C-alpha cells in the first residue's frame, strides 16, 4: 500500500509538468502588456514569446476580448484575440491591472456583451408555442419573445438565469430569490 502511493505520486507530478510543457499559456499581465484605446477600439502592445519561444515586443492595432467563463467569471480569464480571432494571450484577472486599464477593458467587454438585468416581470403570456414577456430591466421596460421557453432559460448558477430571446438577445436575472413574489411566480413554472 505504502509503496503504491510512493509510486503514483511522482507519476502524477510528472503528468502535470508534461501538460505544461506541451503548451505554454501566455498570460497578459501588467508587466508584459499595455492596452490603450484608439477611436472606439482597443489596441495592445505586449511582449510575448514568438514562434521560437523568445520574448518579442509586438503591437496589435485592434484586439478583441472574449470571456472564457462568461457566466461565473465575467472579469477573469479573458482571452485577447487579434483581428483574425487568433488568441494573443489570456488575462487572468482584470483587477490585476491599474484602474485606467481596468476601465478600458471593462468598457470593451460591456460593449461586446449586452445583457440587460431583469428587475421585474410584468407578464408572461404563452400562445402557440411562443411566450411573450414584458419586463423591467436595467435598460428600461422591454418586451421580447421566446421561442421555446424552457430551452430559452439558461441556468448560469444556482439562482442565476439568463433568458435568451428568439433574436439571440440576452437578459439576466442575477438572483431569482431577489425577484419580487409576483415576478417569481410568473417565471417559476419554467424553471
Amino acid at each position: 500500500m505504502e509503496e503504491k502511493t510512493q509510486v503514483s505520486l511522482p507519476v502524477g507530478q510528472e503528468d502535470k509538468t508534461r501538460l505544461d510543457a506541451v503548451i505554454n499559456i501566455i498570460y497578459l499581465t501588467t508587466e508584459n502588456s499595455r492596452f490603450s484605446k484608439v477611436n472606439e477600439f482597443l489596441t495592445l502592445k505586449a511582449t510575448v514569446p514568438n514562434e521560437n519561444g523568445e520574448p518579442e515586443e509586438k503591437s496589435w492595432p485592434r484586439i478583441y476580448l472574449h470571456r472564457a467563463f462568461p457566466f461565473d467569471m465575467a472579469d477573469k480569464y479573458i482571452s485577447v484575440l487579434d483581428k483574425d480571432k487568433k488568441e494573443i494571450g489570456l488575462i487572468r484577472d482584470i483587477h490585476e491591472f491599474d484602474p485606467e486599464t481596468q476601465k478600458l477593458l471593462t468598457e470593451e467587454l460591456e460593449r461586446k456583451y449586452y445583457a440587460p438585468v431583469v428587475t421585474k416581470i410584468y407578464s408572461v403570456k404563452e400562445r402557440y408555442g411562443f411566450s411573450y414577456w414584458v419586463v423591467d430591466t436595467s435598460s428600461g421596460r422591454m418586451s421580447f419573445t421566446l421561442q421555446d421557453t424552457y430551452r430559452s432559460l439558461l441556468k448560469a448558477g444556482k439562482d442565476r438565469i439568463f433568458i435568451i430571446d428568439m433574436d439571440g438577445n440576452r437578459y439576466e436575472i442575477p438572483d431569482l430569490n431577489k425577484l419580487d413574489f409576483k415576478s417569481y411566480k410568473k417565471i417559476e413554472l419554467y424553471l
Partner: protein
Amino acid sequence: MRKRDRLNDLVCHYDPSLKTSDIVVAFEYDLNTDSADTRVDGVCVLIAMGEAEPEIRMYCGGELKESHPLSDCSDFAISSGVGCVMIEYKLKGEDRMLCRADNSYSKLYAAVVKRINRYKDKKVYSYDYEETLLRFCPKCGRPIRPGMTVCEHCVSKGKYLKRLWDIASPYKWYIFLSTALFFVVTLINMLPPYINRILVDDYITPKNDVLVGFLSVIGAMIGVHLLSRLITVWRNLTQISVGNKVIIRLRSMVFEKIQALSLSNINRRTSGELMNRVTGDTRQLNEFITRDLADMLQEVLILLAVGIYLFVYDWRLALMIIIPMPIVAFSYRTFWRYMRGMWHRQWVYDSKVSSVLHDIFSGIRVVKAFGMEKREVERFDRITKDLRNTQIRNEHFFAIVDPILSFIMGAGEFFLLYYVGNKILGGEMTLGEMSQFSAYVSIIYGPLRWIASFPRRIVRTLTSVVKIFDLIDDKVDVEDRADAKEITINGDISFENVSFGYDETADVLKNINLEIRQGEFIGIVGKSGVGKSTLINLVMRLYDVNEGAIKIDGTDIRDISQNSLRTQIGVVLQETFLFSGSIYDNIAYAKPDATRDEIITASKIAGAHQFIMKLPEAYSTRVGEHGYTMSGGERQRIAIARALLHDPRILILDEATASLDTETEKQIQDALQKLSKDRTTLAIAHRLSTLRNATRLIVLDKGTIAETGTHDELMRKKGIYYGLVMAQRQMSKMSNTPANKTA
C-alpha cells in the same frame, strides 16, 4: 416595410432639405456606441443627392452627430457581440464603429451592410433587403414562427377549414351518415330516464299486479340500451374510417410536398419540425375529426335536447340548474389550470429523469472509463428524488382537493333534491318524475365540463391546420421550368459570374468564373468553410445560384429537368448515409433495376466487394438501424459503389475517401482514374494526396477562386496551395518520421 418608410420620413424631418428619394438606406441604432448599456435613439443614413458626393450621417436624438463622405469610408462590415451587433467601417483607413444595437437588428444590419457595399461598388441599390426582413407579422407585430411564411394569428382560419373540408369532401356521405347516427344515439339516450319514470310510477308500487307490463317495460329498457350501444359502435366505426381516410390523404399530401421542396426550403425547417408536420399535426387533425368534432356534436345535442325538455317540463327547475352552470364551469377551469401547472412540473422532472438516463446510457463508456459510476448513481438518485417528491405532492393535492371540489360542484343537486322532494311531498310531482328529472340533470352536467376545455382544443387544431397548409402552400425554390429539357450530358461545366449565399446576409461564393472540360479531373481545395461543398451543391442544383449561371454543355442547368440532371451525376458525399435495408438495396438505391453483375462491378471498383464478401450474408447483410454496424471506410465504399452504379457522366466526390486508409484510398483512386477518362470528376479533399491524379486544381479562398493550375504549377507559384501542401507534409513528417520518402 412600413417601418422603414417611417424611418425615411423621420430623417427628412430631422433635415428638411432632404427628400426620401435621396436616402439610399436608413437604419436605427439603439445602443450607445461609446460603451455602457445606455439606450439611445439614433439613426444612421446613407444619402445620395444628385451629383453630390454620397454621405454617411449619424443622428442621435434628432441631432446630427457626425457626417462623412462615402469616399472616405470603406470596408463596412458587421461585427457580432454577445446579445448585440455592430456595424464597423474604416474611416480614412482607421477602424471605426458606425452603430450598435441589440441582436434584433442583426439581420437588418447584415442587409444594410450588403446594401451600402453594393452602393459603393456599383452605385445601385436594387437589392430589396426589406423583403428579407419579414420576420414579424405586419398586421399584429408578433413574430412569425421559423419555417412559416404566414402569421398563424392573423391568417384567415376559415379559409383553411374550407380547404380541410375540400380534402374531406369525397367522404361527405360517410360524414353525413355518422352525423345522423349521432342524432339517433343522442335521442335514444334520452329515453331511459323516461322509461325509468314509467317503471317507478306505474309498476314499482306496492299495489302493482300487472306483471306483463312490468316485464315489458324492463324489456324496453334493455332494448333501448342495446340499441344505443349498437348504433354507437356503428357510429364509431364510420367516424374512425372517415378520419383515417382524411388523415392518410393529408399525410401523403404533406409528405409529397416535402419531397418536392428544395434543400433550401427544407433547411429553413428542422427535421424535427418536418416530422411533426407529417405525424404530429396530422394526428392532431385526426383527433379533431374523429374525436373532438364528434364529441362536440354529441355534447351540444345533449345540451340542447335536455335543456329544451327541462324548460318545457318546469322552467323554474330548469333555471335552478342553468344558473349555477357558469360558476361550475369557471371553478372547474380554475382548478384544472392550477392542476395543469402542477402536472407540468411533474412532467418536467419526468423528462429530466429520462434525459439523464439517456445521457448516462449513451455515455456509459465514458462513465466507466473515468470510474464515475458512483457519481452518476448519485446524480440519478437526486433527480428521481425530486420527481418522487413532486409526484407525492401532486397526488396528495389531487386526492384531497378533487373529492372536495366534486362535492361542492354537486351541492347544487342537493338544493334541487330539497325543492323536488318538497314537491313530491306536496303531491305536485311523482317519484318517477323526480328520478327522470335528476337523471337529465346529471346528463346535462357532462357537456359543461367538456365545453370548458373546448376553446383550447379548437386553438390547437387550428394551429395544426394552419401549419400543415402553410407547408403545402410553400413555394418550391428550385423548380423545373415548364420547358425544361431532357439532355444527355457530355460533361462540360462552366460557371459564369456565379454568386451564391445560403441566406441574404452573406455570399458564400462570389463571382466564380470557371470552365471545366469533359473528362477533366478537377480537385477543389481550400480551408474549411470557403465554399467547396457549396460549389458542388450548385452543380447538382440542390440550390439555385443568386447571380450568374452554371451551364452544362452550354445549357443553363435551370433549363435542364432536375431528373435528367441528377440521374447523370453521381455523388459521394462527406456524410454517407445508409438506409435500413441490405447492402444490395443500398447500392442499388439510385438504380433499382441494376443487374447483379452491375452491382458487383461497381462494388469492385469502389473496393467494397472484398469486405462485403467477408460477411456471412454478403450482399444481403442488413445495414442501417438494427443492422450490421459499418465503419466509416466501409460506408464510404458502399456510397462510392452507389454513385458509380448508374454510370454517371459527372462524378462528384466530396471527401469521398477521407475515412479510408491511404492504401485502400490509392486503390480506389486508381480505379476511379481509369473510370474517369471521358467523365468529368469534381473532387473535394483535405488530404491533398487524394488529388494527385487531378488534371487541374482549384483553390478556393474566402468564396473566390484564388489559384488554379496543376499541382506543379501551383507548387511553383508558392501561394495558398503551396502553403497547404507544406503544412500537410509537416504533419506527415511528424506522424511517420522514420520513413518519409516522398518529401
